[in-house]
């Protein structure tokens, strides 16, 4: 017996659910032994004890090999990440024009935002905002160099913020772009408990970049699950040698990580967006949030009842996950996903990801094919891509391994276990409606399957997880499917949802009438769950 542990627990403590996974050394590699997801608020030790007991009961010989004695799971080493409630950032600028890119950048960088500009807010209201005990930081920015409409107001703005920062020394202050010149107004910044940080200016239309990275760094604590997700996505992209997009819809924020493998000796890269307004159920849902959930809901409730249910979902996100509650949850997840996509508009210009991975508590209780459908309903790009779910929620804990090589090795060992394949979705764009669009022949190991393609619906080919095939498309007209053309041969892999040919509009157009919309959403879902074409 060695002192080196042969198993450990990966723990992702979210605000709504706790996911625990047992990972053990089997033969010469690490494998996922088992996982469990429970409501937050349950006792973590009890959760791990149940996980250990189930693993030992399922395979006593494996338990012996892992030195896992009965009741001993709670003593295993833990790799733990946790989500933290987002803090509030006051975003301030000298003009409304300068404020917009700052807000766009801050709102995708892990902060809840409250905005004010000198031309739209009086100094008293601005001081009230900065002195509010719920505000934890202030981002004040200007163009670099400042524009003519900003220059006059910057001095007074700096004096106001410096006065508020003096009264609240714990406040984190970020001076972006041309505001950096006003650093002397803040006195001896080295003596304040709260940092005063200089940052680059925000870019209009491109909310990511160095300022977003800086704000993320300030927003997320070291062992934060959102931060680790970015590192995990990067390791996954490197191991698979694929462009990977990870989307998480959580209780307090939505997260999107886009990772690319290293090329030509360069290391892999990842870009991270953490959007608190893309949480599953925002704390105080306004009409826009409620209406967007209503758009995806098949439930047919009025706005007041829907808002009540969203508030309940916020208060007890683990509860009411059956029947209507499950439907509402998926509608809320789609709405959150669309808010997440809106906050990362610059990512639409990139090539689509080869693999999209869903993770987070919002998907934990949904049937796998409906998760795939929710993703392709919202994140619509012409092309072909694989979809998978991080069913045991171990990507974030693995991402928290500090050493990049060790992290990569662990992900390489676990890559077959951590992803449950949902299938491949092929989304051609530019088809003419109202007539047969062509056909697809899927050449699999067991034979060929031929399907006629009808625009506006979904076509499903049963392709189980672990299998692969070549799908040969022949379209009547020229369509966009990565490139433009009529004939395409695409290598596809199977999954719990099989191969889905999505011939609906890009972007998706839904009927205005709620009853028609509900019928359409239900028919698409039935296609994936029951295997009937819509």
């Amino acid at each position, binding site marked *: 017996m060695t002192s080196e542990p042969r198993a450990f627990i990966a723990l992702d403590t979210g605000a709504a659910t706790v996911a625990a996974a047992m990972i053990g050394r089997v033969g010469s590699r690490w494998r996922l032994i088992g996982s469990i997801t429970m409501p937050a*608020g349950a*006792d973590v030790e009890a959760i791990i004890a149940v996980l250990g007991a189930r693993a030992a009961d399922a395979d006593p010989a494996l338990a012996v090999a892992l030195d896992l004695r009965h009741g001993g799971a709670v003593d295993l080493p833990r790799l733990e990440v946790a989500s933290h409630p987002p803090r509030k950032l006051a975003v301030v600028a000298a003009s409304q024009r300068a404020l917009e890119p700052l807000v766009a950048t801050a709102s995708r960088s892990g902060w809840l935002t409250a905005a004010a500009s000198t031309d739209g807010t009086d100094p008293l209201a601005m001081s009230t905002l900065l002195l509010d005990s719920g505000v934890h930081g202030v981002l004040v920015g200007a163009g670099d160099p400042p524009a003519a409409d900003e220059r006059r107001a910057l001095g007074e703005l700096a004096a106001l913020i410096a006065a508020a920062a003096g*009264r609240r020394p714990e406040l984190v202050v970020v001076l972006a772009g041309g505001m950096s010149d006003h650093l002397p107004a803040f006195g001896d910044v080295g003596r304040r408990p709260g940092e005063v940080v200089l940052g680059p200016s925000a870019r209009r239309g491109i909310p990511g970049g160095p300022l977003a990275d800086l704000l993320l760094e300030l927003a997320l604590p070291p062992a934060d699950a959102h931060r680790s997700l970015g590192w995990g996505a990067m390791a996954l992209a490197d191991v698979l040698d694929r462009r990977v997009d990870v989307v998480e819809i959580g209780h307090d924020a939505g997260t999107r990580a886009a990772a690319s493998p290293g090329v030509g000796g360069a290391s892999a890269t990842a870009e991270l967006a953490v959007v608190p307004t893309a949480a599953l159920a925002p704390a105080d849902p306004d009409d826009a949030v409620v209406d967007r959930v209503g758009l995806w809901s098949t439930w047919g409730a009025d706005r007041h009842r829907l808002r009540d249910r969203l508030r309940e979902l916020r208060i007890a996100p683990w509860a009411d996950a059956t029947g209507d509650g499950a439907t509402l949850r998926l509608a809320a997840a789609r709405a959150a996903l669309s808010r997440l996509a809106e906050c990362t508009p610059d990512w639409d210009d990139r090539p689509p990801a080869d693999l999209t991975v869903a993770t987070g508590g919002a998907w934990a209780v949904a049937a796998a094919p409906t998760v795939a459908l929710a993703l392709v309903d919202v994140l619509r790009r012409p092309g072909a891509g694989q979809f998978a779910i991080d069913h045991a929620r171990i990507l974030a804990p693995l991402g928290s391994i500090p050493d990049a090589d060790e992290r990569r090795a662990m992900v390489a060992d676990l890559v077959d276990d951590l992803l449950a394949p949902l299938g491949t979705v092929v989304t051609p764009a530019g088809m003419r409606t109202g007539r047969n669009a062509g056909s697809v022949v899927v050449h699999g190991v067991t034979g060929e399957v031929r399907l006629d393609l009808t625009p506006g619906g979904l076509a499903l080919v049963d392709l189980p997880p672990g299998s692969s095939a070549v799908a040969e498309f022949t379209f009547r007209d020229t369509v966009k499917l990565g490139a433009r053309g009529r004939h395409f041969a695409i290598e596809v892999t199977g999954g719990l949802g099989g191969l889905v040919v999505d011939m609906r509009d890009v972007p998706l157009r839904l009927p205005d009438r709620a009853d028609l919309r509900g019928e359409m959403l239900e028919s698409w879902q039935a296609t994936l769950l029951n295997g009937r074409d819509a």
Partner: protein
Amino acid sequence: MSTADVRLVPARRLISAPVDALFALAPGDRALVAAGDSVVVGAPIAEMIRDPRLDEFDLPTDAEAPLPGSRWTGNNRRGTDGGPTGEYIFDWHGRWRVATGDITDALETPFAGIVREVRPGTGITIRAAGRGIRGIVALGGPTRGRLQLGADGELRSGGLDVGSAGTILVVGSRVDAETLTRARAMGVCGVVVAGLASKERRDFIGSEARQRAALHRLPPFAVLVLDGATRRPLAGAVRAVLAALAGFEVAIVTDPPMLVFDRPNLVIPPPPVDLVRIRAGAMSGREGQFITAIGPRRFPGGAHLEAGIVRLPDGTDAAIPLGDLERFV
């Protein structure tokens, strides 16, 4: 029943202690207490400016430069004892911006305690001498009154009478905005309710804002929501504590949303360890005995969820998702 099993049910704290309540201040408001002060029930702790404005003033040439947040006092007005007061906000080109106003209202502490922190323009934190029952949200302002138990179901406006003036009413499962505004008008100090629908919440907030904007304001009034937005009865454990507090003075504070009571001799026995409450689904609001965790089960909608067996008071057993249960600790 295994103790380990019931620990899989999400826990909710029945009684919170200590209670640190924050009373928010805006620029211009004047704190009347300092950190470390002991305050009694009803003691004024701040003067709140009604309609604050920002004025600009030059400092006299021989005056010492003030710090932002310090108090400003203007010249005496004819016929008054003192001049106008305000708060220095910031200095720009030698002219100070001062938050000031003409009318002030007194803010009183609804419970006794010790002032822990005073931050002008931000808030006053007081540690209450007592314990609290945490809610989901509290609307209105800090208030206090004698606790009075009302109907178990929904309270209608016609069910209110003037005899409830000066009380904090426990109204059961749900209440509408009309009843709340009528209660406020009749001198009721506050309402404790299990659920408040979004529409009623919005209507009441609008009514409260109009009332706060009026020249002659009514005394502070608060609504403490204990559970959520849908109709469900108060939890048995909470109801038992409230019943024990009936007839005694309690307070409602908004940050954190809480019912505060100072009854040091009141012994609150912990709820039975296996007592669980169903907070969602068809049996929402019912309580029972947790028997055992049974692992993943398939529920309507195709969801596979971790479940447990709950024995209801009528002797029947039901398999309930663990997420739909809660227990009090």
